[in-house]
């Protein structure tokens, strides 16, 4: 018996038709989430192996393993809830944007003091998230400030510590998803989600925040302003992965969107067309690190790509959101 008043006003739409979300939830989990995190666990394991075998920053197998594993992270990087957020694992995998230069500071600190935390996975896991993960590894592999900094032996051990830590986090997320998948697929008493609608809304938010991050941060940061473009703010520009991240995230989000819209073929088609247009633009851009934003013409092309992603966002919020019981109200949609 509740001790407090529960008042239901007439302004509240009642009983949004309860729909069976079970099949969509199961499909998104089985075909989108679990394979993605499983692949990341495997490829980060291969990355740690590669660093153990050869930690020369110019090693082709090591750089290939870095690229493969980073690809897999970007393909799940929109699934930011539950296991990825425990212990700040996702931030420890990918600390970006780094507006204050915490990653170079953390690496310089480790190297200049030859910090012994790198000798123990547990101790390394306690160090700053900024000095760990793919973006720290990228500096060690591709940034001349770091490829020669300090002693070669320490640098090697540091890269091995970073790659082992990446694998540890990826494996932990993958392992935790075994239980979390059940909680997401079966909302109720023993789940963070009380209803199937809440579980669906979690996946919808993953879609919309993933689109927002790619449009506003992956593209918006290097675009800067028209008068002051910021090519050096492009994500993973040193390994020339900036555009690739946009493309990979769009491909992953297209897959998720198609599954979420499975009961609404018209909306699914609208979304798929919009994704196809954006991915086409990305694939024809030929500007891997967005260096082109420094020129008006180059910036315009990146702006066109950003606009095509905003087109997807509009379809998601006006067409898909309402079918999933998402409150698209004036305040709830875009609060402050």
């Amino acid at each position, binding site marked *: 018996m509740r001790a407090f*008043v529960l008042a239901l006003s007439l302004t509240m739409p009642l009983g949004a038709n309860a729909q069976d979300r079970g099949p969509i939830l199961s499909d998104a989990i089985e075909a989108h989430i679990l394979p993605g995190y499983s692949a990341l666990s495997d490829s980060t394991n291969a990355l740690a192996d590669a660093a153990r075998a050869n930690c020369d920053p110019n090693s082709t197998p090591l750089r290939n393993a870095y690229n493969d594993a980073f690809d897999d992270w970007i393909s799940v990087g929109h699934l930011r809830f539950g296991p990825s957020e425990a212990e700040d694992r996702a*931030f420890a995998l990918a600390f970006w944007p780094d507006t204050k230069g915490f990653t170079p500071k953390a690496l310089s600190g480790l190297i200049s003091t030859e910090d012994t935390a790198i000798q123990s996975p547990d101790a390394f896991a306690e160090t700053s998230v900024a000095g760990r993960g793919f973006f720290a590894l990228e500096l060690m592999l591709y940034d001349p400030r770091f490829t020669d900094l300090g002693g070669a032996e320490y640098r090697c051990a540091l890269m091995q510590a970073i790659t082992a830590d990446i694998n540890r986090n990826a494996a932990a997320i993958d392992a935790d998803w075994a239980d979390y998948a059940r909680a997401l697929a079966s909302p109720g008493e023993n789940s963070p989600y009380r209803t199937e609608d809440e579980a669906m809304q979690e996946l919808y938010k993953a879609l919309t925040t993933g689109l927002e991050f790619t449009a506003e941060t992956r593209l918006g940061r290097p675009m800067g302003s028209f008068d002051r473009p910021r090519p050096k703010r492009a994500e993973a520009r040193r390994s020339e992965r900036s555009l690739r991240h946009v493309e990979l995230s769009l491909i992953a989000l297209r897959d998720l969107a198609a599954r979420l819209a499975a009961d609404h073929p018209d909306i699914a088609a609208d979304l798929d067309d919009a994704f196809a247009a954006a991915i086409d633009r990305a694939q024809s851009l030929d500007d891997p690190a967005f260096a082109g934003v420094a020129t008006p013409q180059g910036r315009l092309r990146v702006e066109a790509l950003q606009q095509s992603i905003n087109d997807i966002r509009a379809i998601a919020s006006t067409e898909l959101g309402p079918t999933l019981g998402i409150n698209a*109200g004036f305040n709830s949609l875009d609060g402050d």
Partner: protein
Amino acid sequence: MTNRRSFLAGLAAASLAPLRGWSAVGAPDYLAAALFPDGTFRLAGLDTGGDILFSLPLPARGHAAAAHPHHAQAVAFARRPGTFAIIIDCATGTQTAVLEAPKSRHFYGHGVFSTDGTRLFTTENDFETVQGVIGVWNTDDYTRIGEFASGGVGPHDMRLMPDGRTLVVANGGIETHPETGRTKLNLPVMQPRLTYLDQYGGALEQVELPQELHKNSIRHLAVRPDGLIGFAMQWQGDTSQHPPLLGLHRRGEKPLLLSAPDGDQSTLQGYAGSIAFSGAGETVAITCPRGNAVHRFRVADGQLDGVFLHEDVCGLGTASNGFVFTTGTGVIGQLSTNKAQISNRADCQWDNHLIPIRTAA
């Protein structure tokens, strides 16, 4: 508690006393920004019954407003990262001055007048150095006099304490930059704070939440006349967690966090929009537009004592008999002891905040 009764009586008296200079305006009781059906964003003056007494166009979407303590004058703020604030003569319904944020600054949408009305303080973002700033303006001609550090990143709401001297600032902790829209740039390292400052920028007290809640952005404030602060939060962490969204703080003490039982708390999606104390001060409430709910708590024991469901409810103000709320669907309503009653429906979408004019803070 010998003085509880006289304290509550004092509160009621304070909330009913009209402020000098405002009576000629047709006595608006509240200000609120809204989107009107013709596509214009406007600031409206409302009476307690929810009738719109006047409305004035804004250049873009508004957020909050502040009422001058003596003159029938109000300032309406752009929503972040806006760079305008408009001074409105509420007696004539005209715009009398425009504040432009200085270079490399934008407004966050909140501000407060000094007790004597000679100064206006505004929360701002120095987005190149990523420092929260309080701008200081001379209200004679609305020129900028100076600025000082807000004590954290992302200052949002700000209020004047009942002593008339101390500012309390909700430093939300979130770094944003106009070039990346509303994208949050520093979630893994964000550190929200409740900061008390004197009016010259001297830091008096910094309050932080426990480390596991460092992603709980402190955004909006309410002040009870005895100096108790209520703060509303927005959770930026794991969406499968449902931490408290309302806190109470008294200078020199530890904050107290209030939460509904899990089943209710989880519906809020980690988001509270506005906060207010009731007219008598015995309860405090938050609006939760993503959960379509108002949660009301007893201050004395911190227990939830009411859940009121309204679609897209967000604006919330103190009223003599409880609270007044607005929604994004145009509803204006009253929340008394045990019921929520709709008093009016306007043909507009009420924005985040409802600003009481007559309740002296």
